[in-house]
């Protein structure tokens, strides 16, 4: 199993969710996060005092998928979250050792 962590623009969440649902990914975890990459942040000015804000609000979407779904999941996220502008985000993939559904005690693929 793989866990796919995608950092996306906040307003792209619905499109990403729809795309993954269509693919058969049922369930995801979303967290409001702040960070920066190539997109350098912005400046804010309050009564003449200028501040550089380097951490920008993003959403972190995490989904656990079967290995054979991985490539299609990544493609779906890219297709849904991409604007072509700097700041579209990143996708990180890592191995997932185990998954358990708490209610039933099912393991691994059955638990996804």
């Amino acid at each position, binding site marked *: 199993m793989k866990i796919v962590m995608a950092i996306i623009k906040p307003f792209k969440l619905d499109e990403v969710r729809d795309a993954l649902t269509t693919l058969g990914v049922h369930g995801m975890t979303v967290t409001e996060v702040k960070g920066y990459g190539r997109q350098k942040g912005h400046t*804010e*000015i*309050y*009564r*003449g*005092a*200028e*501040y550089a*804000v380097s951490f920008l609000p993003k959403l972190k979407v995490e989904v656990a998928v079967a290995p054979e779904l991985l490539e299609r999941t990544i493609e779906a996220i890219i297709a849904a979250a991409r604007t072509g502008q700097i700041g579209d985000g990143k996708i990180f993939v890592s191995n997932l050792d185990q998954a358990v559904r708490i209610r039933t005690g099912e393991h691994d693929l059955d638990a996804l």
Partner: protein
Amino acid sequence: MSAVSPIRTRLRAAGLSAGLGLLLIAAAMSFAEAQPAVPVPNKGDTAWMLVSTALVLMMSVPGLALFYGGLVRAKNMLSVLSQVFVIVALVSIIWVVYGYSLAFTNGGALNNFVGGFDKLFLKGMTPDSTAATFSNGVVIPEYVYMAFQMTFACITPALIVGAFAERMKFAAVVVFVVLWVTFIYFPIAHSVWYWAGPDDIAAAAKALADASGDAAKAAAQAKLDETLANAGYFYQLGALDFAGGTVVHINAGIAGLVGALMLGKRIGYPQQHMPPHSLVMTMIGASLLWVGWFGFNAGSNLEANGTTALAFVNTFVATSAAALAWLFVAWAYEGKPSLLGLVSGAVAGLVAITPASGYAGPMGSILLGLVAGAVCFLFVAIVKPKLGYDDSLDVFGVHCVGGIIGAIGTGILVAPSFGGVGLVDYTLKPGEAAPGDYVMAAQVLTQVKTVAFTLLWSGIGSAILYKIVDLTIGLRVAVEVEQEGLDVAEQGEQAYNM
């Protein structure tokens, strides 16, 4: 028949009421001849002043509290809200115990600068007691006047807390405010606003006009002089401060600057990022201030008439002009039109129009607002960083600078040639407000003197009071408290539990 009778009934009713009216007028006339008319409060005036009083309270809580609260970091939100709220509660009690007496009674030998103790605990005040307005023969219940002035005493020290926000001990704020209203606010309010009222002056002036014989004339003249001298020093000089530009805003502004200097900068200022935590709250607060300020300025006419409406209109348009001026100047300077600029400009305009609100015309008020909005922005954005002091929420830059622009501007814009109402002399034609002599240079000089006196009295006096509090209980919170935030450490609460 049935169609006619209602008309006839109505006619008869009209005749009856006309007859009754005549009878009443005759009765009133014979009453007036029997004894000199004692003015009684008009219900409309009384109602308007009660509403105005409540409006000014709304300026402090929640208006000012939210305006300031939104500008601090989330960890200090409750400290600002509770400081403003406690000041309102505290000062209103002090006001009825001794504040009203010190501000608005005759102070004997010290009468130029402070009142006396004749009305401690509101002694002698009943629902029938009346207070003078600015019109001959028009009075309002003294309870209304006392309560209206109470709201001014409450908001003035509350304005100061913005200057030392995010770093002063709650207990120190409480003690400082008790001392400050006692030694700074009450004396200045007395010096600028206390006077005998138009009816006493008219009676003395009429007695002088009626006096025959040198001895009687001299006695009457002495009585008139005494009546005119039964006023605060700056009132006697002819200082114009319609609703408190000097008494409230310059006074609080300079006290704030002194506080910011004596407490020192917040940890991390100016390198660390300290953005307002909620400009939404700030916008709500500023809007409540604007609405409440109609009570503050138009209410300061003490009755409901045309001058009240003039002050109302001036309060509206000067504020709009200042909001636009700050917005556009800041837009040119910073590159973006900001909400904080709009609302800060509005407050600067409200401050500047305060002393002029019943004296200037609407076009003069717009001019005053434009100047105040632009100058206050330039002061806050350019001058303050160069000077390097940390006036957290720009109490000095908005209230003192805006107040000075307004105070001096009032001396100019009161001129009839600028659309102002001119000066009033209650002695020329006893019983009515006659136009007084106006010389612009002299008036501006009087305004400058009053401003300078207030800056010195409040500046030096506040420094002494801050020092006393610092030596006894300490002004500033511990470093860890300041870093953690005053809400948890001082209040034991958090603004947002989410």
